[in-house]
């Protein structure tokens, strides 16, 4: 664990273990809101924010939390953070809040967040957990932005890109592209 440098962690979060591209977590918001770049950016930042703080809190409380009640506690922490995030968006980014709508409160159900709490934050010190939240959240946010930008661009000529099927095609293309790049690297 300690052998991993900060650089390695970033590489993992953004590429090798990207929550959206590799772990395929949090696909519901990913597919639903990425019709524009701005929506992708908004939800990406909101998710990143929740993930960093939830990882920090889960890690900070990990000594006191018994194995049996850890899941309800994660849910409690994540749900409160998401509620706060929703209030903050409504207060300071009302336009973004209107266009993201239900998907801000639905960050609660983004399994990438519970997964990081369970896999990483509950077993690692606070600092590392925050870094993990940061890299995983950035990986997710960058993917949302990339798919949002791609769909918005393609939709200028091909309307289907902003419709739900376009989301599936775009994600499939992104995953295919990643695998192709990895394969080529492997061969070299």
């Amino acid at each position, binding site marked *: 664990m300690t052998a991993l440098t900060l650089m390695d962690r970033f590489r993992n979060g953004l590429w090798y273990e990207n929550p959206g591209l590799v772990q395929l977590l949090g696909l519901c918001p990913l597919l639903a809101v990425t*019709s524009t770049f701005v929506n992708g950016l908004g939800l990406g930042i909101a998710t990143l924010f929740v993930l960093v703080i939830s990882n920090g809190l889960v890690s900070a*409380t990990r000594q*006191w*939390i*018994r194995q*049996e*009640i850890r899941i*309800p*506690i994660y849910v*409690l*922490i994540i*749900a*409160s*953070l998401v*509620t*706060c995030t929703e*209030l*903050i968006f*409504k*207060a*300071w980014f*009302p336009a973004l809040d*209107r266009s993201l709508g239900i998907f801000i409160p639905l960050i609660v159900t983004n399994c990438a967040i519970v997964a990081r709490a369970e896999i990483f934050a509950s077993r690692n010190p606070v600092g590392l957990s925050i870094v993990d939240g940061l890299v995983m959240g950035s990986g997710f946010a960058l993917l949302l932005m990339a798919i949002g930008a791609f769909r918005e661009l393609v939709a200028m000529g091909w*309307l289907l890109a*902003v*419709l739900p099927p376009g989301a599936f095609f775009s994600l499939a293309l992104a995953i295919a592209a990643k695998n192709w790049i990895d394969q080529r690297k492997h061969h070299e």
Partner: protein
Amino acid sequence: MADMPVLRGGITLAAIAAICTALVAVTFELTDDRIEKNAQAWLEQSLLPVLAGVSFDSGIGENRLAIAAPHELPGNDDAMIYRVYAGDSPAAALFVVSARDGYSGPIRLLVGLDTSGIVTGLSVLEHRETPGLGDGIESRNWQEQFVGKSLENPAGNRWNIRGDGGEFDALTGASVTPRAVVKAVRETLEYYAANRGIIFATANAPEKATK
């Protein structure tokens, strides 16, 4: 002694629940005023365009009348009527209603009527119609065809989309959505014709039930 772990777990859970609740409560306190202001600004911003040609001097959105469901206005949920005044006399009524027969869920509409029952504007507040097809109802151009219309103009069966023998423009590839909107506007006009006296005579709804 056997239930001690359960008790300890319960206490931990309760303590964390209390901390989380406090966190949400503090955030709520910090954001409440701003959220209220944003909602009001958004409301006024959406109310203004449906008041074409109406002169008024009252604040928009201040003078409202909540109509609890069930009611004769379109929609299954509560409707809201905003009353606008010029001096002491009524100038216009704005109806927040829902068209029920859309393609995907209710379509929240804002319909402005002047005192004689002529449409002063229409705007779509919220909908989940198909992007690229039904969402054409968002277009200003499409909404503007209602301005100046009333229950008698066009008369009777002409209050329909063109495909149904009426006068209103449908959207290419989507007739369900415009049909639902046209019907909701017509029903609002009918409601106004039947209740015109009551709408301006009833006292204000309380500004806010609880604060």
